[in-house]
């Protein structure tokens, strides 16, 4: 009992004044260091085949709201995991309150006052609010001190205007309140540095406002808030400082957000020294090769499904106060000519993922998918692929390959039924190996052998293998999702060349990308998706990345343009 009340008392103290919890270190930090709650120096984190963080620097002043912005795949989530101790960096140092620290686990991080608020709530629905908050750090032993826990939670809740009722069942409360429960969870554990991963992704506008009011109250009390976002208007409106990350590196630090514009930020996020994906000469031919008509995915279509897209949960968790849940994909129609690349721009959770899944037949959908005049919407995934729909999945490790299998087996993947490899139900190994050798050669996959397993390749070479595999089966339409995400510059150039050459040869391509430069450079037409709908049809030659970003975040809306 005594130990627990002590822990509670301590956690109370360190919320109020962030310094106390850091009182364990020995050296005497300078005044300037004292002002810095957390600092990262030259953080490098490698994964097999990828350098996710390649020299990230971050300095967060105490009592501020600090935003980290960057594109998908820029290394934000890797950085975040480093921050709260989910993994250790390969190189670089972490300083908390001016003192170098190595935390080996999230619990070590929370002991130093660093707590993580996850984007996808980790709450037990059949428990009450207070039970969820104390879970894993229950006061009282052997009998749970429920009254004490409730009192403590009420105190915290009132202190920071978080407005939760400890005895409510979590399944009965709304999304905004669930998030406040998550925040209380880390406060209860004594965190003075809060990390929030895209906290507004699931919130409606007035909840967003409330959230930032609460966060401001926290920082006024001495706590520090780090949040990750790619909604630039929100970042500019609420952050005291901004760090921009691109391709695993810190590329910009903004101490006074009032001095930058959203466009400047977007430029920093995307960068300009990348090889240009420009492709100007029109190769668009007459005749529609591929079309989706009124494609719709219902909000609950994914319930019970095995695979979930990356951004799916945010849509499933529709705020309870809204009468009807938003459709992840709402009446989308797109036409693609031969030799045309149609680009789709859209922030995660606004429909691009669902569009790919609906085209590939991975989620139940209504509407038509028409390939060369033939409606294939009743086909299963394999039949669609065989009919001529090639796909470069948005997450190559999840959907595009089997890392523990050899390259030649991966080249068969998705085409295992094709007569090229399959002979009376048996696999023609020689044919598969021959094809793989050709893919490796033609698409510049750098590997000593086609027998090595896929995990040994770098991200760029893995992606070249996937793109090459799809190209080799001569698709009629290619759905390319983030084809150069997380690949090195060399591989990016090769993949762009492949897409350009295929376009010139008459391939219809649906390009989904978070890389706005790639989208603008490669596309013949650009469609913007927002909340499951196509909200703008733009000419890539006449739009800047800044403008595109404005459409994507919904700040500016054009009237939905009828499909050409």
């Amino acid at each position, binding site marked *: 009992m005594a130990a627990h009340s002590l822990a509670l008392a301590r956690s109370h103290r360190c919320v109020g004044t962030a310094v106390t919890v850091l009182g364990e270190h020995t050296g005497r930090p300078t005044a300037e260091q004292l002002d810095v709650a957390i600092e990262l120096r030259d953080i490098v984190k490698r994964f*097999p085949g990828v*350098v996710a963080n*390649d020299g990230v620097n971050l300095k967060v002043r105490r009592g501020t709201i600090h935003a980290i912005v960057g594109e998908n795949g820029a290394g934000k989530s890797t950085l975040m995991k480093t921050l709260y101790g989910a993994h250790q960096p390969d190189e670089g140092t972490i300083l908390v309150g001016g003192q170098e620290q190595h935390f080996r686990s999230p619990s070590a991080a929370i002991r130093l006052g660093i707590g993580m608020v996850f984007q996808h709530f980790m709450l037990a629905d059949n428990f009450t609010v207070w039970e969820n908050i104390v879970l894993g750090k229950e006061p009282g032993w052997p009998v749970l001190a429920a009254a004490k826990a409730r009192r403590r939670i009420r105190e915290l809740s009132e202190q920071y205007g978080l407005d939760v009722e400890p005895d409510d069942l979590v399944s009965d409360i709304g999304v905004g309140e669930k998030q406040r429960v998550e925040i209380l969870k880390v406060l209860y554990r004594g965190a003075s540095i809060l990390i929030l991963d895209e906290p507004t992704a699931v919130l409606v506008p007035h909840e967003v406002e409330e959230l930032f009011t609460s966060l401001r109250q926290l920082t006024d009390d001495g706590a520090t808030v780090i949040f990750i976002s790619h909604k630039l208007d929100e970042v500019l409106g609420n952050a005291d400082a901004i760090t921009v990350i691109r391709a695993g590196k810190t590329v910009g630090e903004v101490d006074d957000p009032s001095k930058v514009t959203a466009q400047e930020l977007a430029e920093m996020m995307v960068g300009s020294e990348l*090889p*240009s994906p*420009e*492709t*100007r*000469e029109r190769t668009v031919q007459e005749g529609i090769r591929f079309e989706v008509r009124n494609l719709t995915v219902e909000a609950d279509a994914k319930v*019970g499904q*095995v*695979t979930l897209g990356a951004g799916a949960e945010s849509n499933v968790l529709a705020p309870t106060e809204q009468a009807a849940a938003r459709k992840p994909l709402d009446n989308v129609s797109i036409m693609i000519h031969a030799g045309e690349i149609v680009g789709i721009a859209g922030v995660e959770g606004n429909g691009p993922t669902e569009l790919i899944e609906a085209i*590939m037949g*991975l989620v139940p959908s209504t509407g038509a998918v028409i390939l060369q005049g033939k409606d294939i919407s009743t086909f*299963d*995934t*394999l*039949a*669609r*692929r065989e009919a001529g729909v090639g796909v470069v*999945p948005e997450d190559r490790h*999840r*959907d*595009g*390959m*089997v*890392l*523990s*299998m050899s390259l030649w*087996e991966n080249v*068969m*993947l*998705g085409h*295992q*039924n094709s007569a090229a490899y*399959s002979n009376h*139900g*048996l*696999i023609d*190994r020689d044919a598969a190996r021959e094809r793989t050798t050709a893919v490796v050669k033609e698409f510049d996959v*750098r*590997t*000593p052998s086609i027998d*090595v*397993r896929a*995990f*040994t*390749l*770098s*991200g*760029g*070479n893995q992606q070249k293998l996937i793109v090459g595999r799809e190209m080799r089966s001569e698709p009629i339409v290619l759905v390319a999702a983030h084809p150069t995400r997380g690949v*090195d*510059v*060399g*591989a990016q*150039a*090769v993949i762009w*060349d492949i897409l*350009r050459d295929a376009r010139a040869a008459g391939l219809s391509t649906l390009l989904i990308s978070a890389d706005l430069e790639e989208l603008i450079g490669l596309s013949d037409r650009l469609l913007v998706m927002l909340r499951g709908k196509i909200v703008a049809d733009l000419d890539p030659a006449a739009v800047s990345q800044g403008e595109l970003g404005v459409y994507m975040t919904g700040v500016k809306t054009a009237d939905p343009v009828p499909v050409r």
Partner: protein
Amino acid sequence: MNRKLVYGTAAPVLAALVALVVSSIALLIAGDSPITAFKEMWSSIDGTQPVVAIINRAVPYYIAGVAVAVGFKMRLFNIGVDGQHQLAAIFAAAFGFGIRDWDLPAPLYVAAIFLVAMLVSMVWAAIPAVLKVTRNVNEVIATIMLNFIASQLIFFLLRNHWNRATGQVAETGPLPQAALIPHLNRLVGWFGFHFPGNTVLQGFLPVAVVVGVAYHVLLNRSRFGFDLRVSGENPSAAKASGIDPKRMVIITFLISGAVGALIGLAPLLADPQFGKYGDQFPQGFGLAGLSLALLGRNHPVGIVAAALVWATIERATQRLSFVDIPQEIGIILQGSFLLAAVVAFEVVRRRAEDAETRAMSRQRPIATHVAPEPVGSAT
């Protein structure tokens, strides 16, 4: 290639050492001398007769291991191999006895019994599969429940319908000679091996060989096997590649059931002690199959080794009670060997993967640091 072999053998050797140490400690705690025990165990397996007995025993073990491994390959846990093969065995025995007057030629007779056994087992295995794909019922729970139901069903059928014995025990009628699979003593005799006395190499061994080869071909050479492995290694990629998970679950369970059916046929048709189904019919192969698939890493040859180890330990500890050492030390040996092997395999696997990755990065600089090749001028 050489390195691969080292990695492959390091784990089981390590595991055997751990198992010996653990069981020695257990023996010492019990106040017995490990040296006496291991000496006795060695003498129990030294000689032609014990070796042949071990092989006979390893045959159903091997088939059980393969039956489970097929499911494991796509992360399906068929705990129901026990119920499936016991039901298959009793139906096969009753059917075989029922048609004794048809005067079928021996090969046809045996084939008919095989067919019945496999059908019964597949039907029983289809139940958890259908429950899983239609109602999302966890196959572990469903198969465990079905094991209980199967044993009650067998009890009922044996007592009330198919009992041909007169005494205390219940048994189906004995199968005629034409329904039994002859032993292989004469066959090995042609190769110059002559077994002493009453040593019999049972005739089910070729079935196990066929099962092993078929398993290998299915897994590594067939399209279905490819789909199976992809589904197991990366279910998400399997789905994205157009592999229907529901279809895979059903077919895998049916294959597992069909293979499992053969377990009970080994004692039923090839062991001179049986030739009928009864209270004394051997049990527990299905559960052992789980251990064997794990130990053999779902590999057609790996499971051979696992089945031999299992049968050897079983045989070696059979006579321990003669020297006043509890026979249960065999279970401790099996258990600690399995546990140590699984841990060792995982350690070795990670080391091998790291080595593979390192070997790759030595061969060429990491692509990220390759100077970007000139971007083709925009067309």
